[in-house]
């Protein structure tokens, strides 16, 4: 399958998807570790992760998918939210928690 299509299916297949280097248990990059920490701090217990270090095609394809050349990348409800700087800012202002609310407490 085409890599862009695979990425699309991944981000729309789970409510919260994080593309990262390493795993939540063993992040391989400080920025990815921070992204995991923020999601946990928001109370998200279940989020899908893709370890781009194990998926070279996705690692390069994801840069074009959201026109975003760095990892981590967070998707909520299939929409690209941002990288670790934006996650940090949105967490500090409470916007991220708000955006995650429908996911955490589905009506």
């Amino acid at each position, binding site marked *: 399958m085409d890599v862009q299509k695979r990425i699309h299916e991944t981000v729309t297949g789970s409510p919260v998807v994080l593309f990262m280097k390493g795993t939540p248990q063993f992040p391989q990059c400080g*920025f990815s570790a921070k992204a995991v920490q923020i999601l946990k701090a928001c109370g998200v217990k279940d989020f899908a992760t893709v370890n781009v270090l194990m998926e070279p095609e996705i690692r390069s394809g994801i840069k074009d998918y959201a026109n975003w*050349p*760095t990892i981590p990348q967070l998707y909520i409800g299939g929409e690209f939210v*941002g990288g670790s*700087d*934006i996650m940090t800012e949105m967490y500090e202002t409470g916007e991220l928690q708000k955006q995650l609310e429908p996911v955490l407490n589905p009506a």
Partner: protein
Amino acid sequence: MLDPQQIHQWITAGLPCTHLIVNGDGQHFEALIVSGEFAGLSRVKRQQRIYAILRARLDSGELHALSMQTLTPDEWEGQGRG
């Protein structure tokens, strides 16, 4: 090793900034970027603007990680640091 001053030059060559600070240790960098061109743009679009300028350097691996704060001049002054 990459010099923060080099990144500073790349950014100013691609975007008119009213204020720009780049710091880093040669591997990881952080930038405070203040530009009127950010007005009306989302956080994502602002960073995409910077990434567009730096894309070739990121793809080549010359630049690995840049953490960014992107503000308009009004937002910058609103932070009381203007």
